[in-house]
């Protein structure tokens, strides 16, 4: 299966998270830590289906992205069809449907940040990571850069996310320093 460039995935990414020919290793095997975590979360809701978003977060933390096989497994665990799970995965922008760079960089470019120079910050990231284009992963598999809509920290322009880290007040001058930290 080929991974085309998309908002959530890189075209030249190295498949660092398992190869499709290898036998599928379930995330939620009985007795595993992710399973215990999910079971605990399920006790908070009156339906199993409500565990879907949390389950997908667990998957992404474990595997880095959400494959079709995982969608099927999640469906089996929660009593949902794989197609239904895919419908939910594709709705939310934060779930990766393709492998992404080791460091997934999201830069806010909505108006409040835009008028403070966010577009230059994006440019600097694209150049200095070697990604070149939005959504593409750098040749070394390290970085993927995307633009995102308002990150809810507009007074601290420009906020970015690197994987799960939220960094605010990023200017062009700070880009190199940030990339040194994530290398």
């Amino acid at each position, binding site marked *: 299966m080929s991974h085309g460039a998309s908002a959530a995935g890189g075209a030249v990414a190295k498949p660092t998270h398992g190869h499709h020919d290898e036998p599928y290793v379930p995330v939620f095997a009985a007795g595993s830590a992710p399973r215990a975590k999910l079971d605990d979360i399920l006790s908070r*809701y009156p339906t199993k289906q*409500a565990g879907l978003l949390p389950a997908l977060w667990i998957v992404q933390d474990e595997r880095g992205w959400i494959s079709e096989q995982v969608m099927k497994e999640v469906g089996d665990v929660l009593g949902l069809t794989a197609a239904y799970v895919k419908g*939910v995965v594709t709705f*939310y922008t934060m779930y990766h449907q393709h492998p992404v760079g080791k460091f997934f960089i999201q830069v806010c470019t909505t*108006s409040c940040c835009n008028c403070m120079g966010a577009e230059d910050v994006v440019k600097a990231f694209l150049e200095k990571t070697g990604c070149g284009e939005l959504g593409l992963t750098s040749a070394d598999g390290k970085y993927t850069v995307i633009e995102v809509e308002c990150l*809810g920290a*507009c*007074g601290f322009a420009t906020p970015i996310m690197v994987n799960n880290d939220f960094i605010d007040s990023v200017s062009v001058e700070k880009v190199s320093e940030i990339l040194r930290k994530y290398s």
Partner: protein
Amino acid sequence: MGYPYKSHPRETPILSKYFGDPEARTLEGWQARGGYRALPQALDTDPVAIQNIVKESGLRGRGGAGFPCGLKWSFMKIGDGKPHYLCCNADESEPGTFKDREIMRWTPHALIEGCAIAAHAIGAETCYIYIRGEFTEPIAIMEQALAEARAAGMIGANACGSGKTINMWVHRGAGAYICGEETALMNSIEGRRGNPRIKPPFPAVSGVFGMPTTVNNVETLTAVPHILNNGAEWYKAMCLGNPKSTGSKLFSVCGNVARPGNYEVVMGFSFKEFLYDLCGGPPPGRKFKAIIPGGSSVPVITIEEAEQVKMDYEGFMEFGTMLGSGGVIIFDDAQSMPKQLARLARFYAHESCAQCTQCREGTAWMTKILERIVAGHGTFEDLDTIFELTENMTGKTICVLSDSCGAPVTSGITRFRGEFEALITGRRSSTVAVG
């Protein structure tokens, strides 16, 4: 303390008093600052009595619509034998708005106490705090505070020893502005795509899991313990403008301004003094030009209009705009309004859930036209088309995201028409020159 700056003497820091103070984050630190005084008492009080105090205070929803909070709670039929739910809306994705983030980052226990009181007041045993997926730091802080509050018995099976159950959980979103719309939020909790639902039925009748539900914004809920501690009269007395707008309000200020950040003032405060004294005026060498005062979904006004506004629900309405979520976006004279409004339209096109044709097609079309104008390929007819399009996108869809796309754009064209026309005629003259 305000944040990120020390609060201005003219602020009224009630919710923001401990912003920037990491010791306020712990249960112990919060109790030392007066926290968890209202909750035990509230749990011993009849829910309807609490609803009445909040009604009397005049507290209105801080999430955007300004609906009276106590009245909303009174729609929940106590003792109907059904499980009731409280959803705290911490999706905070409206461009310009970043106040709930600071409430959760600095004073997580203030929100927990507010949620627990509200849950009791609407007869709910379960509260979900729906936090946008990108807020990794606020999520971690809230989880930590909830664990502390549970361990200390403030919430849980026997909250504050009252014999009442109040369970409270964080539900993490996954990137979707639309999940801030209350019915989309409920779908998202249920493990569905975040599509808004057709109303009626309203959440108080059939909400999350089909059960009676109240959805409230973070800031609304955080105000509640203060109202119970100090009384409805105290809250009501905080009013410099219209008596229908009471209390203190957090305004997030961003864009081209000397001191961006969160400022808490009494309703009805002078917007002019707010902009120049509290926020420090424009950046050096620049002038304020345009302001979107209530998050990106409300009409844009000129600085001349803004300087006359009293900052309350009615005061903003007088100038054809809205208080909304209190996200003040400022553009100075170096900014191109067509460019910024085109970028906003792109936001709505990206965030449309695509259920309604008017919204799915309209937001995309709007973006295309505006980007064409910005690129210098627009026509005067394009401006007319935008107004026609907005009319077709307003009041016709399942939720108001569609309306929200047109509001800043058409108000922007009306007020800054010259900038649009310059781009259009610029194109014309170059065409003429080439021809």
